[in-house]
């Protein structure tokens, strides 16, 4: 069996359980695929070949364990999750040689469930970006067209899954960083509700927005990965006590029972024709099956980008203050302490991180706090109320995940405001805090994936996953890109 890397998580478990192949064979296949595709897509920052094969061998020797939900399944993980046996760089020079002494709760839960980490995946520095071009180390490339970006900031995670380097991955979504790359690369990505998954051990960007979640090739695979990581953690007081659900037991609605809201603000008339045509066809398939659509209003949505970037940058400027070159990370040695701080951060932080630190410092500074930071938080309330009102009329909101398909590398690298504005399709959900799921609606005329997303009420992951599974069953499956011959 040479093509085990093509299996999704459910198929892989089925084969492992029946002993059609061993964990070592599965892991070896994914590692071989990783080696073959990596020179083209640059999705990873560190590969754990030796450790992964060692763990695989141990699991093979012990035999299948049904109590471990992810027994023998290879995963990749975004390089913002702390591991205690590998590097954690967050895509930044500041942490280029950082070795964590503790592990993220997500990592611990995945390991306990029997998952095997193959690699850490590339991301925009500190998860700030939507193209993975702001990684301090290298840009990642889209598996469908390596001249284009994979989206971001979890671009490495999405690219690795679509390329077949692993059947599943974990990323983080602060303003769309799971959903948008999943959409641009052509896999499924789930942003759980804020407070559903512990943030302990995840390098912080914006603490009232950051949320970890899975990426995989199917909705049920994402549900399965969520099952393992969701729920309270006494090391993160922002995790909710609201009980988790049996996400494995997906409740797929009948088409006629599903009502999807179309926020007109997220369906602009100037969507590129090729992308709009794919979404139109996807909607047609749903309508023909009996799904009902209603129009809903999100009247304050045009303020979402400003609100988000003020609040997230403020939180980022506070979170990034810890990178001072004293206790860990990069240091530019100087005789004077203050000069050392400044030079360390000037050398260690990249342009986008510096931009956000400056913006955050500005909106929190004396004289501007009320006008910017507090105002943005008030607007966040209005936007959250709009989304809640819209969701009271339907099961989920339905929208494109991006206003364009994957763009050429470098196209917007010098135009930060335009890139921020492109996040309009995803970041309002992070202001609100509900769950969101992105899946592929098809390929545009340039053979680039077009992603559609569902937004749900806080902690209604079951509703979003169930609706997503229905959409997945009604849309043609997306093939994998041909990356290497």
């Amino acid at each position: 069996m040479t093509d085990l890397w093509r299996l999704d998580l459910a198929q892989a478990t089925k084969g492992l359980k029946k002993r059609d192949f061993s964990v070592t064979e599965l892991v070896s296949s994914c590692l071989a695929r990783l080696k073959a595709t990596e020179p083209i897509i640059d999705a990873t920052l560190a590969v754990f070949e030796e450790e992964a094969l060692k763990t695989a061998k141990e699991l093979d020797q012990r035999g299948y364990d049904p109590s471990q939900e992810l027994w023998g399944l290879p995963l990749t993980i975004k390089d913002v999750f702390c591991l205690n046996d590998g590097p954690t760089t967050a895509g930044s020079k500041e942490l280029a040689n950082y070795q964590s002494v503790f592990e993220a709760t997500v990592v611990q839960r995945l390991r306990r469930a029997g998952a095997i980490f193959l690699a850490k995946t590339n991301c925009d520095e500190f998860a700030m970006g939507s193209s993975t071009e702001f990684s301090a180390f290298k840009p990642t490339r889209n598996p469908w067209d390596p001249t284009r970006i994979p989206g971001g900031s979890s671009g490495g995670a999405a690219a690795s899954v679509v390329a077949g380097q692993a059947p599943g991955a974990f990323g983080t979504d602060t303003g769309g960083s799971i959903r948008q790359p999943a959409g641009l690369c052509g896999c499924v990505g789930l942003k759980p509700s804020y407070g559903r998954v512990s943030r302990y051990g995840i390098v912080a960007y914006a603490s009232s927005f950051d949320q970890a979640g899975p990426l995989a090739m199917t909705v049920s695979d994402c549900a399965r990965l969520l099952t393992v990581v969701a729920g309270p953690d006494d090391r993160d007081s922002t995790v909710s006590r609201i009980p988790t659900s049996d996400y494995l037991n997906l409740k797929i609605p009948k088409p006629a029972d599903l009502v999807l809201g179309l926020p007109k603000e997220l369906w602009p008339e100037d969507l590129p024709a090729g992308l709009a045509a794919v979404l139109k066809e996807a909607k047609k398939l749903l309508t023909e099956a009996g799904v009902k659509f209603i129009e809903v209003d999100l009247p304050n949505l045009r303020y979402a980008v400003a609100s988000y970037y003020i609040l997230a940058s403020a939180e980022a400027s506070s979170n990034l203050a810890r990178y001072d070159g004293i206790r860990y990370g990069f240091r530019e040695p100087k005789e004077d302490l203050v000069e050392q701080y400044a030079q360390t951060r000037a050398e260690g932080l990249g342009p986008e991180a510096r931009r956000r630190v400056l913006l955050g410092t500005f909106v929190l500074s004396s004289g501007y706090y009320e006008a910017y930071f507090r105002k943005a938080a008030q607007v966040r309330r209005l936007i959250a109320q709009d989304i809640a009102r819209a969701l009271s009329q339907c099961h989920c909101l339905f929208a494109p995940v991006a206003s364009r398909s994957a763009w050429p590398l470098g196209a917007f690298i010098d135009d930060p405001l335009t890139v921020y504005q492109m996040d309009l399709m995803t970041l309002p959900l992070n202001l609100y805090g509900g769950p969101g799921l992105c899946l592929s609606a098809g390929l545009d005329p340039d053979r680039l994936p077009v992603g559609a997303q569902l937004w749900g009420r806080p902690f209604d992951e079951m509703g979003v996953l169930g609706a997503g599974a229905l959409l997945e069953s009604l849309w043609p499956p997306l093939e994998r890109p041909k990356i290497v011959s």
Partner: protein
Amino acid sequence: MTNNRQAALSMAKLARLGQTQSEASQADQLAQDFDRIVSYMAILNELDTTNIEPMYSPMVDPLGPRDDEPRPSQPQKSEAILGQAPETVGRFFSVPRIF
């Protein structure tokens, strides 16, 4: 809201506050980008937010405070933690002299 030009002019002060000085060659571009971004943020002025409670977090029903009980620290890790520091003296982090 605020005078954006004034904001842009105080870039040097902001850089000092945020400890993120930039190379002179990048400073102009950074200031230009910053000016554009801050100008865009003025869109929020269109909204009347009188009496709107700010929303600083979407947190619902978070875990309550833990019991205030002593817990073991991780002394076995102190070496590993110190090992991450760019410079140490004995069991301490080292910084440049400040007096």
